[in-house]
């Protein structure tokens, strides 16, 4: 019944119905090259066919939004005629197969998405998930991923200013590598990935095309099993030096105004960039693969169109201005190859030495790609895991629990990791990694940007709606702690197989949670990425939405960090503490339980808290601010003393409302949301308290900074008393300890 047998369609990940749609769109049977093109463009990775109906509901507009989802990256207005251009992207599957190159090329991809928009990248962050650190394979994977991120980002000279890493068994066979990049552009000079103007030349520039990663996009859209190793296409190898040349050359070309549009070749390579640029401009594109620079011999049109070789860009240039553009690339020893023209027929026409090998309406590949409303069903595991019955009393004394948590790799210092990242190049980094949100100043202005990436898969496993809201809140809160007013967000949605109704339910609920939180906190989502099929042998990862939030700091000089600054300052706890151990790191580490419901989130209270923080920092009322997250208040308090040269603390807390045996543990380790620890100079304490009242935020004076100990009383009884040095040493060495005496 068709020109292609079932096996061929299977290999292309297309079902019968999709094949019929192709025939309808073309009004004929596709050629093999066309089949390949459809298969990558209609893959989950490129078409968002399962996620699209949900993503539509995200809030994407706002007075500052210059570019919402749909382009290579989003953009928000940051004043002074400038825009912050940012996005997050996943490279999960490639990083499992080849950790170094997978992570490196992930960094390369997101950097291209940013400079493609005409922005100079100035900061990177990453969000990583691995299995248990006690597993040697996991450690090897982590070492490779970190080295790959470092190898690429360091070489290009973009500082990695922050990130997060968490460890859970569910990621052992499917680690997550999400990379965020932010760049700065002139607000009125943002460049789009559009092809327009019949007869304008189309250029290819960058690395030569090889057989790398052919079908990478379809691979990222299928589960892993033990045969994945055989399906391996040639792994893509990153070339950061080429990327650096492309970055500089493209930014220089953009200054000439000879450029119409530009797009990087990421997933689905030349195919995706060609049809997306055509489709956005309502135009057609006619290219000849014979003109595409090739690294290997005997490549077919199919292979050239589907190759995912890295560090390549597609440009549309104004006719008559070719020379100028070519000259800029020559300066950087890059050779721009003229591979085709823009047409007015809305078709993507691919030739091989003149012969047409594919002719497809660009819209059929993009806007008219299949969209599925996949069935959703509440997971059967849910009602059971949400039940939490605590033992009569905590298993170990609270001080031991604190020590255990400080040593938990999810909480412990990530210095072993970020020391491998150049986080200072460009001399803008105002808050170093490990000391709060990443903060970079914007040279030439008084402003700075704070940024944070956050997500908690465990919370989302227990309740994807609330877990996703909490991720938004935490990222925004981190930014607000530095004094940044949250002005935009991006998200990376890491989930299992969407064809399973239970996974789709997790996805749908998580997107609803993000939507609710972003609306309440006034954070438009300007883009993101969806990574599905994160499963190994039928076992899905925890649903893991990762949020990236960017905040604007009007006066860079007011920025504050996490750590205490002076002895004798007043310590305030903002927000309410409740008996909320569900999904906590404490339960996991001490009681080996992943149960209960994640903490409640009152979005109004959260918003008030963040507004208070931004105001307090701007007005110079606070000297440090640190939010409560994994490990609860006790960990937050301890962390406020780290890196300060032993400024300790002495606090007296009011116990949370619960059974006596649990009061102390729950007060110390509950992860109640919307709480921040702030240190304030004594002479400003009254003013600070007044501001808290203005915003309706509960602010309790819980003690003072000083001494060289972390000393915590609850209802007057001392429950924690440990030297800062001792606590810090545990926290500081816990991660690196796993890596000593190991090969690189």
């Amino acid at each position, binding site marked *: 019944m068709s020109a292609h047998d079932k096996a061929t369609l299977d290999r292309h990940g297309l079902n019968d119905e999709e094949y019929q749609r192709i025939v309808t769109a073309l009004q004929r049977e596709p050629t093999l090259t066309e089949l390949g093109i459809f298969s990558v463009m209609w893959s989950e990775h490129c078409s968002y066919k399962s996620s699209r109906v949900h993503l539509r509901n995200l809030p994407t507009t706002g007075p500052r939004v210059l570019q919402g989802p749909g382009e290579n990256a989003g953009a928000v207005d940051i004043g002074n005629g400038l825009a912050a251009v940012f996005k997050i992207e996943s490279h999960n599957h490639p990083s499992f197969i080849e950790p170094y190159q997978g992570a490196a090329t992930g960094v390369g991809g997101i950097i291209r998405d940013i400079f493609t928009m005409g922005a100079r990248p100035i900061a990177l962050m990453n969000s990583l998930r691995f299995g248990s650190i006690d597993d040697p394979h996991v450690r090897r994977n982590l070492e490779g991923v970190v080295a790959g991120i470092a190898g690429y980002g360091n070489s290009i000279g973009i500082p990695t200013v922050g990130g997060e890493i968490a460890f859970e068994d569910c990621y052992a066979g499917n680690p997550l590598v999400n990379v965020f990049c932010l760049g700065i552009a002139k607000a009125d000079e943002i460049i789009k990935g559009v092809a327009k103007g019949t007869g304008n030349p189309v250029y290819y520039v960058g690395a030569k095309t090889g057989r790398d990663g052919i079908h990478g996009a379809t691979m990222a859209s299928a589960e892993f099993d033990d045969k994945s190793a055989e399906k391996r296409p040639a792994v893509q190898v990153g070339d950061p030096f080429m990327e650096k040349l492309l970055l500089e050359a493209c930014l220089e070309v953009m200054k000439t105004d000879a450029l119409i549009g530009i797009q990087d070749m990421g997933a689905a390579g030349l195919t995706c960039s060609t049809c997306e640029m055509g489709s956005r401009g309502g135009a057609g594109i006619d290219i000849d693969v014979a003109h595409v620079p090739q690294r290997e011999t005997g490549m077919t049109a199919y292979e050239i169109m589907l190759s995912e070789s890295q560090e390549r860009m597609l440009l549309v240039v104004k006719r008559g201005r070719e020379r100028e553009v070519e000259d800029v690339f020559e300066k950087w*020893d890059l050779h721009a190859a003229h591979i085709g023209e823009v047409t007015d027929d809305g078709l993507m026409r691919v030739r091989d030495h003149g012969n047409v090998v594919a002719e497809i309406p660009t819209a059929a590949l993009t806007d008219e790609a299949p969209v599925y409303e996949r069935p959703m069903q509440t997971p059967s595991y849910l009602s059971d895991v949400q039940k939490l019955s605590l033992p009569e009393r905590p298993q170990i004394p609270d001080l031991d629990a604190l020590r255990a948590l400080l040593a938990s790799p999810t909480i412990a210092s990530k210095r072993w990791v970020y020391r491998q990242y150049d986080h200072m190049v460009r001399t803008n980094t105002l808050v170093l990694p490990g000391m709060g949100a990443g903060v970079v100043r914007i040279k030439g202005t008084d402003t700075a940007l704070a940024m944070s990436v956050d997500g908690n898969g465990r919370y989302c496993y227990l309740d994807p709606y609330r877990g996703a809201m909490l991720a938004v809140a935490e990222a925004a809160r981190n930014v607000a702690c530095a004094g940044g007013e949250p002005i935009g967000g991006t998200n990376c949605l890491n989930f299992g197989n969407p064809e399973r109704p239970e996974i789709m339910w997790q996805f749908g609920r998580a997107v609803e949670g993000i939507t609710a939180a972003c609306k309440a906190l006034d954070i438009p989502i300007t883009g993101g990425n969806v990574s599905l099929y994160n499963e190994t042998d039928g076992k899905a990862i925890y649903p893991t939405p990762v949020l990236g939030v960017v905040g604007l700091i009007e006066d860079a000089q007011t920025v504050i960090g996490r750590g205490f600054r002076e002895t004798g300052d007043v310590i305030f706890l903002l927000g309410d503490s409740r008996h909320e151990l569900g999904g906590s790191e404490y339960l996991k580490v001490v009681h080996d339980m992943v149960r209960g419901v994640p903490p409640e989130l009152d979005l109004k209270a959260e918003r008030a808290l963040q507004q208070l923080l931004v105001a307090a920092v701007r007005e110079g009322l606070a000297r440090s601010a640190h939010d409560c997250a994994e490990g609860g208040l006790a960990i937050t308090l301890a962390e406020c003393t780290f890196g300060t040269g032993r400024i300790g603390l002495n606090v007296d807390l009011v116990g949370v409302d619960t059974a006596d045996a649990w009061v102390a543990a729950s007060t110390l380790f509950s992860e109640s949301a919307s709480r921040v620890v702030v240190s304030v100079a004594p002479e400003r304490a009254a003013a600070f308290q007044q501001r808290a009242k203005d915003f309706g935020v509960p602010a309790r004076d819980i003690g003072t900074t000083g001494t060289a100990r972390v000393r915590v009383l609850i209802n007057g009884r001392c429950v924690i008393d440990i030297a800062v040095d001792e606590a810090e040493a545990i926290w500081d060495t816990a991660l690196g300890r796993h890596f000593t005496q190991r090969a690189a």
Partner: protein
Amino acid sequence: MRARVFVTLKPSVFDPQGKTIVDALHSLGYGGVEDVRQGKYFELELAAESSENARSLASEVADKLLANPVIESYRIEVVDSPSVTTK
């Protein structure tokens, strides 16, 4: 006994270093160098009685640590015997 292990990128895998070296050589006037591929080279000192033992130890070590099978392949030479195994 001594073994030499040569680790090279598989032929289809892109070698940015090799490419950059060729470019540099061309701009220095060495057009006669048409291609360069860069690999790694290891010299192992082995406590092994026979060259067979040496070879099997070397290849175990190469599999385990010296080569990344996803992108690289390797070749071993045991210095006492000139024969060459490839994998």
